[in-house]
């Protein structure tokens, strides 16, 4: 690889399509063809037992082709959705059904699935389904989850999905014997991904070849492909999953399969018709995923210079009603929390707790912002307690350039040692201070105060474990014309991935990057069966 082309301004190839209105997002697929449309009945209650579902008013509605509840699902489709990333400490992992079976555990949980001539008729039908609920007390917020007066899942004691602890050294003893100590309680509320384009799935079954083609707005086409094949009882080779242009992901489209990613293909195969589901914004608001919600308690012991001798962090993670994505988010918080620092000892304990709210998907940073917030607030608190400059306290805690590779003594989210390869944090901080005028700021603040303005300055230091995988599927195909086609399975949501090969290749004229679509298995014979999905730093 050459660095010759790095830093060059390169026109994105997809922009011409996007600017002319020729993008091809999932709801644009097969427009003008004979397509049926799906809609989903979602729970209006956070916690309820389903006593009865009456679909009789829908069955005779003109234009309605399918009305399904859990009773209509068989085999693997009737079983819970997969738990994507199991972990030994996730002792009470739970996932939902494609359609709720006996109980709903969050507002928005899918209960019934309708396929009709168009979305309007499908929504009419949804409105006519009658569900008899027996209300159960909802558990909302971490406080209620911890008190556990009520349970989200009757068979999960204390609402605790997982408890995990890691320790490097004896943090509690170090804090007890430290010259100074502090405790902090730090809370972060929930956030949502909210891409401009919601979720969506289109499926077409070809009875002649026995193949299923699925278009879905996802960040992980190969994962959806595996899930669809497993749930519908098809061979992997019978399923093509195509990711068209994606109007933003931000994490919510990493989770998979969403119920509709299975129900739409199932309906397409059952009916022998093209079926499309396009989530609307209201559905996305109430039924997609959240992240961030955590409460942290910090105990820290330090010396006169602000050097951290012992750091003991306990936190509680609100994982919502189900745990399809395992413990990735809280594990990342617990390990990446240390950032560029080397506390004398560190202990972290977290509980991942159920609440009657939407589940968690890794969202923009995936637990890292919480960890960074906790660590940086702790640094500021130490500086304030000692009356020291905030950068000084950070400096004395940095891992030094001659200490790399540096092993934090913890196990990271990927099951491997949390070892940092390289870095020069003191130089970075000095550069930052010069750039923002840190040392000159007190004078600037006084000057502003004379004008009646109150100004402040803050800083945060951060190290991120990147490059998940690291692996990527690729398919290089030489046409008889001599043209070389390179396909990768990495999808894009605006990162300009369709041109990575020319950009990093020393012989870019030899490459023609495929630009129209990126798929797990493309219909034109370029299978790229493995791809870890675009997320975070990838």
């Amino acid at each position, binding site marked *: 690889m050459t660095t010759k082309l790095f830093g060059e301004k390169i*026109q*994105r190839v*997809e*922009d*011409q*399509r*996007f*600017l*002319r*209105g*020729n*993008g*091809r*997002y999932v*709801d*644009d697929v097969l*427009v*003008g063809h004979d397509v049926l449309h799906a809609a989903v009945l979602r729970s209006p209650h956070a916690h309820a037992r389903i006593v009865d579902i009456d679909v009789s008013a829908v069955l005779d*509605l*003109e234009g309605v082709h399918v009305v399904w509840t859990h009773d209509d699902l068989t085999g693997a489709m009737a079983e819970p959705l997969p738990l994507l990333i199991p972990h030994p400490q996730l002792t009470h992992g739970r996932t939902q059904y494609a359609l709720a079976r006996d109980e709903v555990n969050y507002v928005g949980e899918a209960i019934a699935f309708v396929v009709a001539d*168009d*979305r*309007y008729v499908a929504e009419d039908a949804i409105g006519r389904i009658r569900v008899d609920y027996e209300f159960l007390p909802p558990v909302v917020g971490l406080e209620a989850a911890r008190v556990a007066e009520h349970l989200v899942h009757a068979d999960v004691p204390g609402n605790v999905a997982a408890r995990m602890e890691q320790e490097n050294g004896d943090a509690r003893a170090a804090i007890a014997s430290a010259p100074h100590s502090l405790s902090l309680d730090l809370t972060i509320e929930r956030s949502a991904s*909210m*891409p*401009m*384009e919601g979720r969506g799935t289109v499926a077409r079954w070809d009875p002649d070849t026995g193949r299923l083609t699925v278009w879905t707005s996802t960040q992980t086409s190969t994962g959806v492909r595996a899930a669809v094949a497993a749930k519908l009882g098809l061979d992997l080779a019978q399923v093509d999953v195509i990711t068209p*242009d*994606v*109007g*933003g992901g*931000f994490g919510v489209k990493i989770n998979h399969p969403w119920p509709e990613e299975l129900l739409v293909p199932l309906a397409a195969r059952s009916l022998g018709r093209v079926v499309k589901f396009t989530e*609307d*914004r*209201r559905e996305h608001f109430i039924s997609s995923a959240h992240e961030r919600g955590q409460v942290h308690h910090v105990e820290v012991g330090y010396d006169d210079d602000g050097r951290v001798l012992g750091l003991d962090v306990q936190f509680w993670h609100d994982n919502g009603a189900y745990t399809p994505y395992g413990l990735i988010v809280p594990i990342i918080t617990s390990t990446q929390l240390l950032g560029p620092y080397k506390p004398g000892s560190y202990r972290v304990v977290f509980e991942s707790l159920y609440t009657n709210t939407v589940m968690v998907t890794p969202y923009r940073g995936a637990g890292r912002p919480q960890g960074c917030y906790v660590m940086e607030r702790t640094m500021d608190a130490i500086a304030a307690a000692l009356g020291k400059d905030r950068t000084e306290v950070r400096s004395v805690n940095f891992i030094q350039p001659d200490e790399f590779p540096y092993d934090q003594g913890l196990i990271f989210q990927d099951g491997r040692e949390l070892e940092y390869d390289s870095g020069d944090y003191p130089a970075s901080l000095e550069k930052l201070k010069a750039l923002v005028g840190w040392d000159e700021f007190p004078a600037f603040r006084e000057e502003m105060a004379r004008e009646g303005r109150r100004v402040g300055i803050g800083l945060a230091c951060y190290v991120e474990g990147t490059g998940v995988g690291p692996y990527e599927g690729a398919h290089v195909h030489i046409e008889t014309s001599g043209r070389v086609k390179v396909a990768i399975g990495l999808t894009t*949501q*605006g*990162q*300009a991935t369709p041109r990575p090969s020319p950009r990093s290749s020393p012989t870019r004229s030899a490459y023609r990057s495929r630009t129209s679509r990126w798929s797990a298995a493309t219909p034109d014979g370029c299978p790229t069966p493995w791809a870890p999905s675009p997320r975070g730093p990838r």
Partner: protein
Amino acid sequence: MTEELHEVRLVVNGVAHQVRVPARRLLSDALRHDLGLTGTHVGCEHGVCGACTVLVDGRPMRSCLMLAVSAVDGEITTVEGLTERDGTAEGRLGPVQQAFAECHGLQCGFCTPGFLTTITASLRDNPDPTEDDARDMIAGNLCRCTGYANIVRSVLRAAEIAREQA
């Protein structure tokens, strides 16, 4: 229950189309699904995000808040109608489109059509906007990727391109 259908004539990007739609069919759905003009995107279906903005007689309108049957008297312009004729089949990018390409004013591209239509109309009213004016022009459109800085830059650049071409 058979829905009554209405014969509607929609003039879009200078071309007249005849469609039969129920009274409740949104203009956004009629453009996308009946006419196949999928450049107009639907982001929120309640008039907040601006992605579905089209021009009706030159004025920006939320096509998700308008019924197709109520658009019969107007000349509709969608993002597909913003390119300019230059003798080629696809035409050349209009000033706003060109500015977005130059200033990296888009990433995933989903909100882009609504920005392009909105800014096209706004620059007609105010061909020489300040940066504050530019921010005001796009205040009714949401973008989740860019953080707006490059979109503001695109507005100013579009005005420049339009002046250069005038």
